[in-house]
């Protein structure tokens, strides 16, 4: 996942800050993301997000962003080891990292780990665990394709970071395991 954000009170003071963000969105969109923030939000949001299926595509997007030198903060979400190597190959350095230590507390309240793999793809948790279970049942009953179910599950995620390709993979695993 790649995110671009304007620093409030600094980057958003540029007269062309909106054009810079839209340019980033266009670059992301050109590289066939599996999901991207809805287009109508590009004109108002201080953040642009998109999800990609492979690190090679992420590398191409970052390479272009480096060349265009738009001065907007870029955050990549993914495997630390992969991102470290990728940015190094482009001639960049990781600046700041947000590490996840996982979940604590009453974990018995959580759905299965596989279901969580899907619901947590939306960082704001707009995709419910019941909807995952519901679509797994429909897929098994032959009433919906895995691809269509993944699209339905992605719909509540307005930021566009829900990785539809990954959801298809996990849904297939859920259908086959039960």
């Amino acid at each position, binding site marked *: 996942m790649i995110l671009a954000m304007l620093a409030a009170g600094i980057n958003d003071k540029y007269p062309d800050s909106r054009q810079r963000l839209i340019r980033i969105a266009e670059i992301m969109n050109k590289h066939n993301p599996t999901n991207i923030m809805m287009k109508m939000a590009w004109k108002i949001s201080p953040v642009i997000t998109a999800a990609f299926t492979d690190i090679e595509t992420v590398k191409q997007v970052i390479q272009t962003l480096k060349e265009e030198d738009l001065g907007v903060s870029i*955050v990549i979400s993914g495997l630390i080891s992969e991102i470290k190597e990728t940015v190094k190959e482009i001639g960049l350095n990781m600046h700041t990292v947000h590490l996840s*230590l996982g979940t604590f507390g*009453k974990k018995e309240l959580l759905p299965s780990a596989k279901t969580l793999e899907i619901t947590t793809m939306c960082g704001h948790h707009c995709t419910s665990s019941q909807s995952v279970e519901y679509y797994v049942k429909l897929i098994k009953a032959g009433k919906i394709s895995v691809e269509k179910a993944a699209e339905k599950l992605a719909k509540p995620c307005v930021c566009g970071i829900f990785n539809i390709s990954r959801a298809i993979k996990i849904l297939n695993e859920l259908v086959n395991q039960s």
Partner: protein
Amino acid sequence: MEIRENLCNGCGKCVIVCPVQAIKIIDNKAVIDKNLCVECSICYRNAECPVNAIKSRRLVWPRIIRNPFSDVIGTHKLTGIPGRGTEEMKTNDVTNRFGTDEYGVSIELGRPGVGTVLKNIELFTTKFSQIGVEYEKMSPVTAILTEDKVNIKDDIKDERVLSAIIEFKIPKNKIDQVLQIIKEVEKEIDTVFSVGIVSRVMKDGSIPIIDILDQQGFKVNPNAKINIGLGRA
């Protein structure tokens, strides 16, 4: 949110999309448990109710506080960005919010997908007040703390939200105390919470905090959010 009983046909589409399982079918009608509902509006936007029975109602204080902590649509008045988080490390290459001698900490109560009452925040803040932390000024959680940054304002303590993020920074030498508090609260809290640690990356690309966390018994996920330094003021 409200479901108009006279229109509802009991199809259950709203039940499926609710992230906190606050909607049930009772006597062939969808019924929202007002206590569990976090006012995220997800049912309103995504249930595709065939009879338009879901109604967005005007919320009043204190219930209205549920919405900004639960509904991702719309820009928060305080933070200026969509959702309940802040810029945190996402713009650190521009803001230098987290320096080389500091760590950032984010504790998201109710995540993933369980929800929390706001008073759970006090389980942490009462303990953090004893070690001294610097809360993120732009955080929606900081805005609902009392002036001494210990308690949640009385009238909203029992309000339920999808998640609430405590964000602060500390000098590096306080990380052990923070981790100890996390271990203590884990035993007493009635919901889940997710923990994130923000650190600057060393010039050689190393991240020494990972080993420190490991020594304290905290396993760092292989995935992370990484600011790659393309921003500038």
